[in-house]
C-alpha cells in the first residue's frame, strides 16, 4: 500500500497504478540476429532481487504515463521515481 510520487501528477495512492515488471530491459533492435538463448534472456529472464530493484510503473488510473522507480523489495521503500529515458538519482 505505497504512496507513489508520479513524475507527472505527484503523490497518489498505490491503487491508481499498475506494476509493469523490471525496468531497463531494452528490447533488442535486431531480434532476428539473436540466438535462441540470447532472445530467451531478454524475453524470459528476470532478476527478482531482494534489495533495490528498478521497476516500471504505469499511472493507469491517472495520467496513463509509464515511468520507472527504484524500490527496496525488502521494505517497499521507494528511493527514486524518474521518467522513461532518465536515470535514477542514486
Amino acid at each position, binding site marked *: *500500500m505505497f*504512496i507513489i510520487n508520479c513524475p507527472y501528477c505527484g503523490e497518489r*495512492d498505490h491503487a491508481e497504478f499498475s506494476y*509493469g515488471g523490471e525496468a531497463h530491459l531494452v*528490447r533488442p533492435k*535486431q531480434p*532476428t540476429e539473436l540466438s535462441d538463448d540470447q532472445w530467451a534472456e531478454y*524475453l524470459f529472464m528476470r532478476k527478482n532481487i531482494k534489495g533495490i530493484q528498478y521497476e516500471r510503473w504505469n499511472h493507469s488510473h491517472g495520467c*496513463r504515463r509509464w515511468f520507472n522507480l527504484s524500490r527496496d523489495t525488502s521494505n517497499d521503500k521507494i528511493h527514486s521515481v524518474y521518467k522513461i*529515458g532518465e536515470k535514477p538519482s542514486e
Partner: protein
Amino acid sequence: MSNEYRLSSGGQINRSEIISFKFNGKILYGYKGDTLASALLANGIHLIGRSFKYHRPRGIFTSGVEEPNALVQIIKDEAKTDPNLRATQIEIYEGLSATSQNCWPSVKFDLGSINNLFSPIIPAGFYYKTFMWPASLWKNVYEYFIRKAAGLGKSPTKKDPDMYDHNYYHCEVLIVGAGPAGLVAAKTAANAGKRVLLVDERPNFGGNLNFANENYNKINELAPLEWIKKTCLELKNYKNIKILNRTSVAAYHNYNYLIMMQNLTDHLPDKDKKGKIRQRLWKVRAKKVILATGSIERPMIFDCNDRPGIMLSSAVRKYANSYGVKCGNNISIFTNNDDAYETAITLHNKGIKVKSIIDIREKSNGSLPKKCDELGIKIHWKSAVIYTEGYKKINKIHVINLSKDNSSVVGNKLKIDCDLLCVSGGYTPAVHLYTQSGGKLDYNEDKHYFFPKKNTLNQMSIGSCNGTFGLKNIITESHEKTKEFLDIKKTEQFSILEPRSGNFENIWLIPSNKISGKTKSFVDYQNDSTANDIKLALREGFKSIEHVKRYTTTGMATDQGKIANMHALGIISEVTNTKLGELGTTTFRPPYSPITFGALVGRNVGKFFDIVRKTPMHNWHEKYNAKFEDVGQWKRAWYYPSGKESMYDAVQRESKAARSNAGILDASTLGKIDIQGSDASEFLNRVYTNAWNKLAIGKCRYGLMLNDDGMVYDDGVTTRLGENHYIMTTTTGGAATVMGKLEDFLQTEWPELNVYLTSVTDHFATISVCGPHSKKILEKVTQNIDYSDTNFPHMSFKNGLVDKINCRVMRISFTGELSYEINVQANYGQSVWEKCIVAGKEYGITPYGTEAMHLLRAEKGFIIVGQETDGTVTPVDLQMDWIVSKKKYDFIGKRSLYRSDTIREDRKQYVGLITKDPKEILEEGAQIVAEVKNKPPMDMIGHVTSSYYSPNLNKSIALAIVKNGKKLKGKKLYIPMPNKTIEVTVSDTIFLDKEGKRLNA
C-alpha cells in the same frame, strides 16, 4: 437478581439499568456497562468452554482482547450468528444470547475430554503424525471427527442481513490507543492545532488507568478516573480532533496506511440496531502515527496453570474496580513483580480476602509489598505455585520454595485452599502493529521483553508498548516525545503520584517437583500447547521458531498467542541456550484482532457493485426480448427468442436468416482505437504481423497481434482513413489491454515514433448488416454512397450520410456473407439501427446475437481470440502463415516464431472436426484422443474449441486444437465422454464457401 459475586458498590456500571441475557440457554442478569465476562463472573460463572485438543475445562482468564479461553458464539438466527467472540469484549445488551464453543455435547459433560485422559499420546505434531494414512480415511473419518471435536464455532448459513460501510480518512496524526500515553499525546497534538485521529478498541478511554488504585495513583492531584474524564472532555472540545471508540486497528501497512474496524451497533439492544450500519471499515492514511497500544500482562507457566479460577492479576483488579465484581472469595496471588500487590490491596480494601501472595523474588523494596505486609497478607517469598487442584474450578494450590538459582524446587510443598488464583508474570509491550509496519525489535535482557528498536520520522511508539512502565515515565515520555515528533513548543507540567516499584524477576517455566514430561504446563491455552510440546519439537529437530510454532501450533489460535508467545520463546531460548535477542520473534500478522467479512466487503450495493456497460442500442434489444451475455463489463445481445423459442432454435433461425436474407448485429462493443501521426503506418507495421505501409487510403485490413513470445494476443480490422490516420478495432474483451500495450510500446520502447492513440470505443455505435440483401438495405439507409463492387469493393470504406448524420461504412465481414458495418456517433446509434430495421423489413432482416455470430464465423473457420487461442497458440499453429510477413525486418513476436519450441512440427494446431453422426454436437472443451482405452488415463492430444449444429450445412461442425493436427486431415479421432465415445474425422477449418463467393453475392 442473583449477582452473588457483585460488590455492593463501585464500578463504572449503571446499577439502575438491569439487563437480562442468556448464556447457554439460561437467563442471567447484569448491568449496563458490563461485559459478558464481568456479568458471568458476577453470577459466579467461570467455566466457559473446553480447550481445543484435550477438552479441558477453561474459564475467563483476562479482561480484554488477549482472552484465549472465553470464546463464545452469539446467536440470533441462521443469518445472524457470530463465532469466536471474546466474552471479555462483548458488551451485554437486552436480548443477548451467547453459547459456549468447542464442547460437544455440552460444556459440563464433554465427550472430547476423553482426550485429556489420553493426553500423553497427543503430543506436539500429533495431528501431523496420526492423520496421515491411509488417505482414504481422511474424507469420511478423520475430517469428520476433527471437525466435530475441534470446531471453533459455527458460521451463519443465511445471507448477512446487516449493513457495513467503508470510509477513507486522512489525518496529520493518528494515535492508536487511548490509555494514559495516548490521551496525553492526543491532547498535546490537538492543543497545537494538529489534525488528530484518536482511536481505541474499548468503549471507554483511559486504558489500564481506569482500574488503578486511586490511593496510590494521582495525576495533577486528580484520581485516575477524574483525570481521564477531564482529559476526555477537553479533547472533545477541540475541533481538530476526531475520536473513535470501539475501533480496533487490524493492520498497519506501509506508508502509514492503516485498516481499522469500528463497531457501531454490536453493543446495542436488537431493537436499536435496526437500520443502522453495524461496522465500518476505516482505511486511514496518516502523515504520522503514534502507537500507544499498551502492554499485555503475562501469565505464569506451571503445572495445571489452566484451570477455571486462574486469572490474570490485572484482570481481577479490573473486574473489581471497573465492574464491581469479585472473582473469588478466597484469593491467592502468584507473582514476580509489584503490580500484583496493587491487586491485593485493591481487593483487600473492598473486603475480599487475600489469603496469600506467592512471589518468586527474594524480596521487594517497593511500597506496595510493604503495605500488604502491614495489612497482614501472608507473603511467601522465593516460592512458586507448582500445581493446582480442582476440576471445573480451582480449589487448591501447591506452593514450594525455589532454589537459589530458581532452577529447581526445595523443601516440602504446602497446600493452600483458594477459589481464585491471580497470576502476574509482568507485562509484554504490545508491539504487534509496530512490527506489522516493518519495525524491528530489540530485547531488554533485564526486564525480559521485546520493544521497538527505533522510531522513524513518521512513526513512533510511546508508553508501555514502547517498554516504558510506571505512570510518571509514561506520561512524561508521551508529552515530551509527542512535542518533538510533531515539532510542538508548548509544554504542559504534570505532577504524578505513583507507588514506588520494586524489581522484576523472570522464570519462563516454573520448575516442578515432578519428573519432566509428567506436567501439563500450558503455554498456548487456546491451542493446548504445553511446555513439553515445545521441548519435544526441539528434541525432534525443529530449530527455527517459525517451525516450532507450526509444529506445536503455539500462537496459531484466534488469539494469535497474545498471552503466551513470550513464554514459548523464553522456553525455546532456555532449552537451546540461545539469547532471546538473537532468537527473535515469530511474525505478527494482521489482523491484530479478528474482523468480520461483512466489514471487509463493505456496503452491499447490489447491481452497482460492478460497472455495467450498455451499447447505444441496448434499449432496443431489451424491447425485442434479447437475452444478454456478459462480455467483460459489456452486456451483449446474445440471441432474440421469439415467443417461447428455445436458445437453440433462436440461434438456428438467426443464423439461417443471416445467410439466406439479411441479418443485423450490434457490434458497438468492439474496441476502437483512433491512431494518428506521421509514423502511424510504421507503428502498425511493428505491432501487427502483416505489412501496413502499402495499404491504400480507404482500405481495410485484418491484422493479428502477437506478444513478444509469439503467441496470438488480439485480432481485428484496421482501416486507413487518411495518410496519417487509422482506426483500429480490437476484440471486445481485449480493448483495454490492447490500448495499454500499445501505449506501453509507444512510451517506453519507441518514443521516437510520432503516433497518438485515442480510445474511441464508446464514441461510435457499430451496426453490422450482412446477407445477400445487405447491399439493398444499405442503399436505402445511407445517402451519397455508390455501393457498386467497383467503387466499394470488399475490405474498403466510405464516408457517407444517414439523413444528416455522418457515418463511416466499412465493407468487411466476420460471417463470410456480403456485409457492411455502419459506424455513427454513439448518440445516433439506436435511431440508425431502427432505420436499418425498417429498411430491411421487406428483405426479412433478422437481428442476431453473439451466439449466432459465433456460429456463422465457425462455419467459415474464423478464429475467436480467447476461444481458439489460449496464449499458447502461434499464427502458424492456427494455419494462418499467410498473415505473417516474411519481408518485414521485425514486428512484436517475430523472433519467437522460430524458437526451437515454436517451430516444432507436432505442436497443437488448429483443425476442423466432422462428427460421424451429423446430428451429434460435441461439447466445447471435450478432450480428444487418438486411441481409446477401457478407462483413463488416455493420451489427450487436444480439445474442442468451438462446436455448433450448422443450419446452413445441416450438420454438426467443430473447431479444435489438436497435436500435429495439420498432418491428421482425414484421420479418425475419438472423443471419450462419460457414457459414450464419439468418432470424428479431422477436416479443413473452412466448412462453408471455401472460395469466398458469398462475399460478393
